C-alpha cells in the first residue's frame, strides 16, 4: 500500500505576446495548494502570484499566502533562483508553496524555450568573487605571547577551551558572522581559541596569523568538507576541495597531509521525525563504514537536537572514537555554545592535530545549558 503520494500539475497558457500564465496544483497527503503565476516571456520575471490553500496542517499555515508576494520580481533564469525561492517563500512562508512555485517557473521556462524555437534564454552568471579561496605556503610565526596566555587560561580552568567549529562570512556564504566579530565574542565569553572551519574554504595562513597578532588570541584553521557520507571537519589539509568528494578520497588526502578528520554532526536529522522512528539504534549506526574512516566524532553541535547529540556521543563511545564539541556558529551569538576542552597546550595548528590524535580532550557545553554532560 502506498504511504505517501504527491501529484503536481502545471499548465502554461500564453496569455499575450509577452505573458505566460502558469496554473499549478500540488496535492499530497499533507497539503493541497494552488498557484496562479504570471511570468514575462521576454525576461522570465514573475509579475504576479496568487496562492490558495485547499488543505493545510497548522492554524498558522494560511499566513503564508501574503508571503508569496516576496517572489514578485524574481527572475526564473537567475542563478540560484530555486534556492532563493526556498529561502524566501519556503522558510518565511510555506515550503509547499515554494516547491510549487519552482515547478511552475521551471515549466514556464520549458514553454518559453519552445516559443523561442528550442533555444534556452541565458542570463550571464554574476562573476563570482574568488573570496580568497587560495592556498598559500605555510609561514612560521612566533606564538610566544599567545602561548603564555593560553597556558595561563588552561591552568585556571583545567584545560584549553576551543570552539572547533565556526563559520564566518563571506568565507561561508551561509554565515552572517564576520571573523573580527567572532574573535571579539570568543574573547569576551572567555574561550581560549576558535577554529575557523568554513565550508570548502582554506583561510590564508598569513591572514590568520595577522588576526592572531592583532587580537592576541588563538585562531586556528580547519575546513568543513561535504562528502558522500556527510560533512567532515578536517584539520591540517592545505589542499582546497571544491564540490563534493568521496569520503574514501578525502581520507587518503588527510592521511597524506598528516591531518585529522572528524565526522561533523553525523546524526543531524529531519524536522519532524528522528532516527528513532526509522529504527536506527546506536549499535546499528556504529556499523556505518564512515566510522572506520574518521578519527573523531562531533558529539556536541548546536545545530542539532540534544537527542541527536546524545546519539552521536553513544556512537562515539561505542566505536572508541574521541568526541569533540563545536558550536557550528553561523552568527556571532552562536560562538562558544559548545567547545572542546584540551588537556594539553595548544599554540598552533600542529599542536592542535597532535592533541586531537592524543585523545586528551572532552566536548563541553561551554555557553549552552544542557543536561548532556
Amino acid at each position, binding site marked *: 500500500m*502506498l*504511504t505517501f503520494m504527491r501529484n503536481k500539475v502545471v499548465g502554461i497558457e500564453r496569455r499575450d505576446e509577452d505573458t505566460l500564465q502558469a496554473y499549478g496544483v500540488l496535492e499530497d497527503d499533507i497539503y493541497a495548494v494552488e498557484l496562479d503565476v504570471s511570468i514575462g516571456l521576454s525576461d522570465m520575471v514573475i509579475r504576479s502570484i496568487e496562492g490558495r490553500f485547499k488543505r493545510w496542517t497548522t492554524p498558522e499555515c494560511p499566513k503564508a499566502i501574503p508571503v508569496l508576494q516576496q517572489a514578485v520580481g524574481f527572475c526564473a533564469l537567475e542563478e540560484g533562483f530555486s534556492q532563493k525561492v526556498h529561502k524566501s517563500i519556503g*522558510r518565511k512562508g510555506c515550503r509547499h508553496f515554494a516547491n510549487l512555485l519552482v515547478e511552475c517557473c521551471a515549466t514556464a521556462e*520549458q*514553454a518559453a524555450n519552445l516559443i523561442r524555437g528550442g533555444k534556452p534564454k541565458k542570463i550571464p552568471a554574476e562573476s563570482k568573487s574568488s573570496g580568497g579561496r587560495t592556498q598559500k605556503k605555510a609561514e612560521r610565526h612566533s606564538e610566544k605571547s599567545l602561548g603564555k596566555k593560553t597556558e595561563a587560561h588552561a591552568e585556571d580552568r583545567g584545560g584549553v577551551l576551543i570552539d572547533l567549529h565556526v563559520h564566518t562570512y563571506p568565507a561561508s556564504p551561509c554565515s552572517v558572522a564576520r571573523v573580527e566579530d567572532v574573535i571579539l565574542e570568543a574573547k569576551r565569553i572567555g574561550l581560549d581559541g576558535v577554529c575557523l572551519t568554513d565550508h570548502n574554504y582554506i583561510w590564508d595562513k598569513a591572514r590568520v596569523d595577522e588576526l592572531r597578532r592583532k587580537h592576541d588570541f588563538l585562531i586556528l584553521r580547519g575546513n568543513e568538507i561535504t562528502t558522500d557520507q556527510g560533512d567532515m571537519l578536517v584539520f591540517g589539509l592545505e589542499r582546497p576541495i571544491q564540490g563534493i*568528494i568521496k569520503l574514501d578520497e578525502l581520507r587518503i588526502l588527510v592521511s597524506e597531509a598528516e591531518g585529522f578528520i572528524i565526522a561533523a554532526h553525523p546524526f543531524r536529522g*529531519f524536522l519532524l521525525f528522528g*532516527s528513532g522512528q526509522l529504527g536506527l539504534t546506536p549499535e546499528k549506526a556504529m556499523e556505518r563504514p564512515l566510522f572506520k574512516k574518521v578519527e573523531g566524532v562531533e558529539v556536541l553541535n548546536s545545530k542539532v537536537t540534544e537527542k541527536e547529540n546524545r546519539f552521536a556521543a553513544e556512537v562515539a563511545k561505542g566505536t572508541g572514537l574521541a568526541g569533540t564539541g563545536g558550536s557550528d556558529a553561523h552568527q556571532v551569538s552562536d560562538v562558544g555554545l559548545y567547545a572542546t576542552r584540551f588537556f594539553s597546550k595548544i599554540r598552533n595548528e600542529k599542536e592542535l592535530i597532535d592533541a586531537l590524535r592524543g585523545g586528551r580532550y572532552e566536548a563541553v557545553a561551554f555557553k549552552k545549558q544542557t543536561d548532556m554532560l
Partner: protein
Amino acid sequence: MPHVLFFSRNRSTSVEHIDESSVKACCRLQDSLMDAFVEILVKLPDLELAEVRPEVYRSDRAILPDAIESLRKAIGIRIGPGLVKIMKGLVGDRENLGELLNMLDECCQGVILSFTKDALAKAPEDRRKAKEYYAQLVKENVRLYDSCIAFAPDSPLVEGIKPPVT
C-alpha cells in the same frame, strides 16, 4: 488569445514502505517534451539509497545514455540534510541531467514526507492541544524554529519558546 494550454506537465511521486527495512519511491514526469521515470529503493534505518533506476521514454532534450547511468552514482548516499548538494556534486549538474536529478530529489523528498506525515497525523484536533503539540515539537528540535511561517518567531505556536540561539 484563446485559453488553450501551450505546455502542460504532470509529476507524480509515490512512496511505498515495502517492509521494515525497505522503502520504494518513484517519480513519473510527463510533460509536453518529456516522459521519464525514476525509481529508488531506500534501506532503513540509514535511509541509504540502495538502488536508483532511471528511465527516459520520450524526450525532446538530448539525454545521453551515460547521463542516465551517472544518476546511479547517487547509490550509497543517505537521504538527509544537504542531499541535493551531495547529489549534484556526485552525479554532476549537466543541463541534460537536471530533470532526472529533480526527479531523484522528488523521490527522496517523498520518502522524508512519508515519515513527516506520521508526526503531523498525531497532532490533536483540539486547537489548544494542537498548539501544545507543535510547541513541543519545536522544543525538541531547534531546527524547526523559524523553518516556516507556522514556526516563525512571532507565531503563537512558538510563543514562550526561547529561540534556539540567544
